[in-house]
């Protein structure tokens, strides 16, 4: 057993080494901690023999919910989709670390890319009116008195489009989005919170990097 764990440790170190070469924002020890956390979250393989290679949607969503207080299903799915770069329905260790690098410590540019990807629900590289409407549909209190309860949302979409759609094609391209966010940083999470706030970031980092080291 000890031999195995020793091997594991060595393996972990080499993996950490390779990953740290192309992941910014984390140093090697931090990556090791993240790997440990990742394996911890994976838990025991459900069926022995079949190695589990990544976090599935459910597990990932519960992480987002528990650590970062996210509640919006659509946004959480978007975050999962963004982490899961190879679209295999699982967040692998590499994807986990690369994703967190942006999620926790990304620069503005990285975050713009990340957020755009989260909001681009169908992955066509545009945020369409329908997608916006979809993401914003619960964001206004509906006045039952109004004829069309969705009118407010539709209007909000129009307002947003007016502000962000620089090429006037009725949808947001990445360039539109990037330009708008650079002009006004508040628009980064325009269609829903998909990044952690500073307190939960600090808590998570503390939890992963410090408590894990103590173990």
């Amino acid at each position: 057993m000890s031999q195995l764990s020793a091997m594991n440790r060595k393996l972990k170190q080499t993996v950490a080494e390779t990953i740290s070469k192309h992941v910014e924002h984390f140093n090697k020890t931090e990556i090791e901690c993240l790997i440990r956390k990742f394996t911890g979250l994976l838990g025991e393989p459900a069926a022995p023999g079949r190695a589990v290679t990544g976090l599935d949607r459910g597990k990932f969503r519960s992480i987002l919910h528990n650590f970062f207080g996210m509640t919006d299903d659509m946004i959480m799915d978007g975050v999962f989709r963004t982490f899961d770069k190879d679209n295999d329905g699982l967040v692998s260790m590499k994807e986990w670390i690369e994703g967190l690098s942006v999620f926790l410590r990304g620069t503005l540019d990285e975050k713009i890319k990340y957020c755009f990807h989260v909001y681009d629900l169908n992955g066509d590289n545009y945020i369409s009116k329908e997608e916006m409407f979809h993401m914003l549909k619960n964001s206004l209190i509906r006045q039952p008195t109004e004829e069309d309860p969705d009118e407010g949302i539709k209007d909000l979409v129009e307002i947003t489009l007016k502000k962000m759609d620089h090429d006037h094609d009725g949808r947001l391209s990445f360039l539109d989005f990037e330009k708008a966010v650079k002009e006004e940083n508040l628009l980064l999470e325009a269609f829903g919170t998909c990044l952690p706030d500073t307190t939960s970031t600090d808590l998570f980092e503390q939890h992963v990097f410090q408590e894990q080291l103590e173990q």
Partner: protein
Amino acid sequence: MGVSLTKAAQWTSCGSGKLELTPMNESLLKEILCFVEKLGFQHPQEAELVFEAPLQWSTTLVASDFKTDYDIRDLEVQSHEKDSEGHPLLQLSPPTVWVRSFSQLSKLVHFADYKKLEEVRACLQENRDPLLKIFGPCFANFTEREDTHSNVPHLIDEDQVKDSELKLKLFHLVQNMDQQLLKNLLQKISEQVRLDPTTVKNDIELLKRFCSEGEKRVLKSVRYTSDYEFENGCRAPLWRQLHSEICYLVIEPCDTDELYITCSTTGVFINGGIKHEGAESGYERTSEMYKDLVTLLKSQSPYFAENIKKQDFAVQELPSTQRIQHVESVDMEEQGQPQRSYEQHEKNVHDKARQQHTLNKASGEKKYEPCPRWRNHGLMSPSCNAEEKKSSKSSAEERSCEIQKKKPGQGAKSKMKAEFSVCSIPGSLSSHKIKTPAGAMPVELSSESSLESEEEEEQSECRPENNIDLPSEYWQIQKLVKYLKGGDQTATVLTLCAMMDFNLMQETCQLAIRDVGGLEVLINLLDTDEVKCKIGSLKILRKISHNVQIRQTIVDMGGLQSIVKILDSPVKDLRALAAETIANVARFRRARRTVRQYGGIKKLVKLLDCVPNLANLTETKEKDVEVARCGTLALWSCSKSTKNKEAIHKAGGIPLLGRLLKSQHENMLIPVVGTLQECASEESYRIAIQTEGMIKDLVKNLSSDNDELQMHCASAIFKCAEDKQTRDLVRKYKGLHPLVSLLQKVNNKQLLAAATGAIWKCSISVENVAKFQEYKALETLIGLLTDQPEEVLVNVVGALGEFAQIPASKAIIHKSGGIKSLVNLLAGTNQALLVNVTKAVGAYATDKANMLIIDQLDGVRLVWSLLKNPSADVQSSAAWALCPCIENAKDGGEMVRSLVGGLELIVNLLKSTNNEVLASICAAIAKIAKDKENLAVLTDHGVIPLLGKLTNTTDDRLRCYLAEAIGHCCMWGSNRKSFGEAGAVAPLVRYLKSKDSTVHQSTAMALYQLSKDPNNCITMHEKGVVKPLIHIMGSNEEMLQEAAAGCIRNIRLLALANRKARLFY
């Protein structure tokens, strides 16, 4: 249209039949225009109806304005549409146009485009009774009849049933709109006088106090005719409110019959006897118009007039005390809107907040709730039958016709008057407030610095409300605010971003945000936990808070507290934004006090803690610097209050400011130096600025390229250079030259004032004057003696006065003709300037050549006449200036004699209570008394007893000049004896115990003179003068020795003579 046009529209009185350019007419026109435009597609059938007679007016339209559907021949136009007889429905032969249907009308206004309002105006002006033309005589007359409804059916001819039906429908449409117009107008009229009911109410409350039993009773009773008060504060029935009447009173004075009084916006008058609510008659005016209730009562009841005088004081006192209490309670209860503070914590406030804002709001949603009775009359229900409404109304209308006709001419005047009466009351109150002793005032207020010249006064809003002219932004903003209220975090952030795209520096947008209740939501957002919402909200607040009214509203709503709280936030962006917003809001006292009371000063000072000058700033450090910059901006605004200056000092702000002063960036330096110069009015700051080594940096920045920065630096030096060490430091750091170079910027008066001020104060040190002389500062300054604002002149002249310390200056000023400019300035009125000018004139009068010019220009007379100036500073400064003038004039005595009444003036000033004035006058008297003739005149004017009376003073400065004056005045007649009789000798002996050697000198001289009278010698001897005099004889001063010895000799001689007499007789 009919009634509102004939009755409500404001026609010019001169009979030319023009519609006046008033906002009310403007809105009337717009409504009518809107009606015409809409009718075309809302009721196409009715719109086709052919008018009985064409509406005809001269238009500005030309043939080319018309499009298809028209026959255009040269300049003439005819419509394709024709009536049954083949006449075109529209015909234009410039400049006249004939139109025969609404559809053509609406097309026409469409063509007219931006001139459409003008067209409608022209049309209405030339068709004073459009209804007559549209419907023909029989229909139009309906309006005048009371039983219209029943008559209508009979009028419809069987043959023309269909046509008539249409006509009837159209008629109803027009009637409905007429009603709508009237209603809007009523609203407008009541808005114009919006504030007035409150004044009336206050007056009545005041009068009610006089109804109390006992001796003070001046009235028996005061009562309203109606207990029901409308939401707008009026008690008159609605249809009377249209005549701008507010309420009716029944007042019973002690000596005459009951008075029935109408209060209207134009004034108060006695009516025909309205005894109770709902009276049908008696509204007519039976007395002249009075400006307020008290005036009316005074003229009607002699008893009231007699007694109110006795209570006049009380009448004034009453509101003022209320006012003060109000000021004190401001923080607890924000201007009578206590519920606001509770509501802040909820974001989605709907009901109350809305209600409140609809009250303030300029929109047309305002609804007065009439009491049920009026509803029964069908007055306020637009749905009710038009005819029925007319019937109840027209009788009243006719009765009021007389008053109504006067209305147009009075419209503007009455409005002005209403505003005046409203404004004048707070005005008189506040002036009264100032007069109340400080004890009664809130300590906070009285302690504010008097230097706050740029203080903005809190102003009550006098915005003309105009329903119709709301810009499109208003509605867009209203919509956004709705989303803000009902949105989650994401929607809120999006909406805030959208709101930022408006031009938030524009007043329309700023006020729109407030008026639709947006300010409240923005402030509520500050209390949430959502960082992004707070950032967004602050980004908007910092912009709109450039508006004075917005600032006040933010403070009223308790928003400033929330903003101050955010200064602690861990998010740097938030801290910076909050500080920046505070910088804007804290432009008036109450706001600054709030900042302090909620610990804002300490928090702001904490923001300053950063290192501004690292070579390579990391991103976070850069942010720190930005936060510090915003913090300084806020402190700058706050530092206009004395207490805040102390608070900044206490919080340790000065060293931090000193560190920021090392920054390279102008945008940082300007607020830092701005704050420092603001605070430099306090002694403690001046010392700190010097000891913290900031003078060096201030001097350095004098050479910056930024005028504003230079100005603040110069201004800081101006204030600090009162201190000698500071002056030396400025010289040491080579600050004098840059100061002189600033004098070149003659176009920037503020900068010039600051620079000349700094030069003035620096030149108090002779070493600095010598330096200035090198830079030819004096020549430049003399050039600035003309055509400059007073704040510059004061400093220039002050500097000139100090420059006179160097003899060379006197020659220079003589050469460059500066004396003439100085003497010219003596004719001014600015007291600070006069003090400096007289001082300078005095300083240069020490030179004979200059004195000659002064005398030629009649400068002495000018200086002398300044003794009559009410300001003690000017008086004393003028008296000091007189001394060298008298001394150096060619024939001083003759010159003084030539000033008729001058000596009497001087003697009378000895009755002043100001020691400085007394000292200066004594000095002048000493000079004047050198001329025997003048001394005789002085004596005649009773100078001796007045001087004698002053001798009991303990002020050494005064003692010195007083003794000198006494000494010189002894030279005439029996004055020595008179001084003895006036009891002046004994106190003078006491002067010898003073520690001030100059006092000794002049006292010894005076005593020597006085000792020539034997009785005085006895008194002196009794008071033990010999011992101190012997002591003084040992002084180094020859004059002093001589005087003391002479005095003792006289005493001794007397004693000897005495003994001789006893021995030999």
